[in-house]
């Protein structure tokens, strides 16, 4: 009996020091045409991006932090430059890994058959031991959509499967999205 109590106390201690893993939820933005899954509370923001080819762009950012892993979906619109999509996507991927240690750089392919969307998945170590980021990059229907999950040093489990779970959850065929997905708002850009 005493042994059982001490085991229970031990379990309680472990639970107390391990940050609670927030439940993963599905999110969908029908206007922008994608869905994904992430843990934690999603906050919507706008930001900026500048590339030599892409030029200055406003971005829509959906961000959450859970267990010292930052999850971020960034959307940029290039509706007037869709024929430049391959170069714009290539530039974004290049900038993501520039001057960083690249651990993986592979094809990303979402959706089957003729609906397939081709992109890249890249894992980098951030400079100055600031963590490890898994990114996935796609350009479809005039929008550049990137998913980035960064395991921060405070988490330290750089082999965590959660970043891959996040970037691989992207869907562009919305019929694949779980029923009951949370609808994301689309902030107005200038």
């Amino acid at each position, binding site marked *: 009996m005493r042994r059982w109590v001490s085991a229970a106390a031990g379990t309680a201690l472990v639970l107390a020091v391990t940050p609670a893993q927030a439940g993963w939820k599905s999110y969908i933005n029908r206007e922008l045409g994608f869905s994904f899954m992430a843990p934690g509370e999603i906050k919507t923001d706008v930001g900026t991006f500048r590339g*030599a*080819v892409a030029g200055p762009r406003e971005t829509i950012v959906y961000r959450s932090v859970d267990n010292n892993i930052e999850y971020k979906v960034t959307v940029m619109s290039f509706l007037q430059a*869709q*024929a*430049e*999509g*391959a*170069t*714009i*996507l*290539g*530039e974004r*991927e*290049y900038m993501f890994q520039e001057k960083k240690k690249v651990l993986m*750089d*592979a*094809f990303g*392919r979402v959706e089957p*058959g*003729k609906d*397939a*969307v*081709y*992109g890249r998945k890249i894992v980098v170590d951030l400079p100055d031991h600031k963590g490890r980021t898994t990114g996935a990059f*796609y*350009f*479809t229907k*005039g929008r550049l959509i990137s998913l980035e999950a960064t395991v921060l040093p405070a988490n330290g489990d750089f082999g965590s499967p959660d970043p891959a779970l996040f970037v691989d959850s992207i869907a562009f065929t919305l019929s694949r999205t779980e029923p009951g997905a949370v609808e994301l708002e689309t902030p107005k850009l200038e």
Partner: protein
Amino acid sequence: MRLTALAVLLGVALAAPTGPAMAAWRGYISHPLGFAFAAPGELKVEKGTYQGTVAGQHDTLIYRFIDDNIEYKAVVIDVGDKANDAANLLGEAEYLFQEKKKVLMDTFGRVDRQYGRKFTIELPNNGGRTTAAFYFVNGRIVSLQATVLPANGDYETPEMGRFVDSITFFTVRAADDAIELPAPPK
């Protein structure tokens, strides 16, 4: 003295390579297509077809050269009717190129404001080694591919890299004496 000189000359002649002479590299340019490159050997122009699940079927224009058992190809796939899907079409072409092959290199290609990819693969059944570069420019997938055939066997040759890296999309950067590439055969 005269005999010695003759012997030296004979020796030099005998020591000269007995294999096929390597052709000089020349610059080529296509003003309508907006690119230039350099290649050795005799130019042949061919037509072909490209098929991708996303892209569908499209005509291709191929500029082909063979020199020293290395095949050099500039492949142009006109996907102008689907140019708005540029990123996806380029990604599919790259994916198909390396599918089910042993990939030795897969890296960024960056030329004259254009971002693409460069690959080196081993062909199945000891068919040789290919280095290729893929770009999407003006509604076209442009790919340069150099294949070292088994008859050559020097899979580390720098000629493959020289070919794919010779591409330029700023035609002012083409060689001054670059030869204008002919239009495809009717």
